[in-house]
């Protein structure tokens, strides 16, 4: 990350002729080639998802057909109706939503507080805390599952939504990301607020956080993706059906030895539709947030 504050102010260059295609002139060969490559690439990336979505409307026999059909020839909702009959979709959707929203809010709050201290204060143990945080990004959850469960269980948080929300909230990636962003904030702004007599927490809340909006947005997106798709941890902690999230419920459904693949596919497709909708609605902000240099 280059310290962007030290960059000289950019000279606003007059529009160059590089973007010939948008300025009404005939697009160059290069531009056509580039657009073609990008579109073909995008089709390749999206195709498996579309195909899976279409396949969930195929009958079991058609799914097994050789060669495969591209789209369902006899369209059936059976996979959805039988799949969903055995499946309390609204409840799992609600649980997933509660966990995702609550965990994301908590993550944003505690991660940004920690990141602020690590970025803008000088205190004993700061570098050590940062180093530990960084190393923790490298610990895979799978390998410390049982010790974590022990802690959660001794706090009495198993089998509750709290046990799904709190333990994963202190994401090291979030602290890292926000700290890097806050390093680029001008100290002068904070100093000025201090001179105005604002309290430390108020400065954080009213001055620093609004300035960090792009980085917070990026972390929020990732937190939503992580928590929505979390599987391993909820599987162990959410024991009653009443607290299970969608991925867990799907795994339980698919884990029955006599369930056909067509139904598993249908339920899986249903589970990714909410995130995809949210993503498509927010994609403009997500992409621009990411690209605006929040991730550095």
């Amino acid at each position, binding site marked *: 990350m280059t310290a962007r504050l030290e960059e000289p102010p950019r000279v606003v260059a007059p529009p160059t002729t590089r973007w010939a295609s948008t300025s009404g002139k005939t697009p160059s060969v290069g531009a056509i080639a580039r657009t073609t490559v990008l579109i073909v690439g995008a089709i390749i990336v999206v195709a498996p998802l579309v195909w899976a979505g279409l396949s969930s409307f195929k009958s079991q026999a058609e799914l097994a057909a050789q060669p495969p059909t591209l789209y369902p020839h006899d369209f059936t909702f059976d996979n959805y109706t039988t799949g969903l009959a055995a499946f309390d979709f609204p409840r799992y959707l609600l649980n997933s939503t509660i966990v995702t929203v609550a965990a994301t809010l908590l993550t944003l709050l505690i991660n940004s507080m920690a990141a602020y201290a690590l970025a803008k204060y000088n205190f004993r143990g700061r570098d050590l805390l940062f180093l530990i945080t960084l190393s923790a990004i490298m610990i895979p959850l799978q390998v410390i599952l049982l010790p974590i469960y022990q802690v959660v*269980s001794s706090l009495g948080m198993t*089998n509750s939504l709290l046990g799904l929300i709190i333990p994963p909230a202190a994401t090291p990636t979030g602290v890292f990301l926000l700290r890097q962003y806050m390093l680029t904030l001008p100290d002068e702004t904070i100093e000025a607020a201090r001179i105005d007599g604002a309290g430390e927490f108020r400065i954080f809340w009213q001055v620093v956080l609004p300035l960090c909006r792009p980085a917070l947005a990026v972390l929020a997106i990732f937190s939503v993706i992580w928590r929505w798709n979390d599987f391993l941890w909820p599987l162990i902690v959410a024991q009653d059906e009443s607290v299970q999230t969608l991925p867990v419920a799907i*795994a339980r459904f698919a884990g*029955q030895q006599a369930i056909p693949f067509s139904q598993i596919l249908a339920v899986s497709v249903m589970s990714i539709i909410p995130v995809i909708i949210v993503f498509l609605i927010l994609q403009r902000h997500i992409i621009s947030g990411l690209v605006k240099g929040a991730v550095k």
Partner: protein
Amino acid sequence: MLIRSRSLATAVAGVLALALTAGCAPGPLEQSDSPSGPVTVDFGSFKGKRMTYLYFTDGPDLDATKAAIGRFEQATGATVELQVVPYAELQRSLQARITGDTVPEVARVQDWHPYAGELLDFTDYFGKSYPDEFTDGAVSTTRDDAGHMYAVPSDQTINGPFVNVDAFAKAGVPVPTATTKWTWPEFVDAASKVAAANDMPSAISVDVSGNRLSTVLSQYGTTLIGADGQEGLDPAKAEQALSMVNDLLQQDKISKDFWLGAGTNYKGGNDAFLAQQAPVYLSGPWQVGAFAKSAPFKWAAVPNPCAAECGGFPGAKMMVAFSRSKEPTLGAAFVQWMNRTENQREIDQAAYWLPTRKDLVASGVQYPTHNEDMNTFISQIDETPAVGFKAISSPAFTGAALALIKEFGKVVAGQESVADCVANLEKEIDQIVKASK
């Protein structure tokens, strides 16, 4: 990243210090079980108490279990929380709960050995003669060498083939009856003919599972674990059996892609059978309930093919109660109640399970449909060599079955000869047996 060397040194020192302080044991040290004495169970004392039943399901049995739980709650006034986990995650879920001291009162499992030391002994609660209520084969999977009964057999499984009757009819191949004795070559021949006549890509569909592969070993007269609890493979017989299966895979009579694509996961062949990709399916009676509901063609259970021996290979599902749960006595009582004659009969009927109680086996269970198919499976139990029941009661069997799938996969992929596979298996199983002691 602003990490100065001083703080790096502090960090290293910190980690070392933590390592030293962590020198104390992460949990209680292993010790031998202290024997507990008899406990009296008063079914009238459970009013208002709560317990958890951790369960995995094959599908149709879930509703039957829920109904039985309802009757138990009504009879005792206790509340039973039924928690369902996917079978693949059962082990991990239970292990986590054991480490976290939040064990359920009761769980349905396929093998009690991984939880040894955590389970209560049912003979303490229901007397030394309680095991006698169950068939010898079923009960042998629930006891250790000292005679403790750490589980109650809730249902028995026996592997056997299903055939697509419509497809057989179209090919003009007669469907074998419940008493037919056919050999492996006859079996393969019939399946191939039917597949060809119906344009099906494979002749036989099979679950990728060590237990299913053990069926063939058993039919060829050998087994992973012998009657003495030691590694029990007869190399010549094992080579014969595995070569035969390998040939089927190499000729794609059993889909090689399907077999190799499973990795170390259990993979069910039911999809291929239901989608009419194969006219024959090697599985077991737990499929009957689902097939009865969803198969779009007429099907039947038929006897296993024979080699040196006939019959299938057993499997067991059992209920265990955890001694360190909040309500161990209620847990024990629940298990006993669920396996009383009238309750086991009702679950067996609704879930298409095979009974484990002597009285039910003697009187027979009347299933709502497909009674004949169920009887075909039951008839296979008597045909199965007794050593199979010994084998699955060994603490090393689950591990050995996994090793079988892993090692045989190398043969199928062409990386190893059958002889090497058997030799390696013998070594591996020997180690697993030693480690399980």
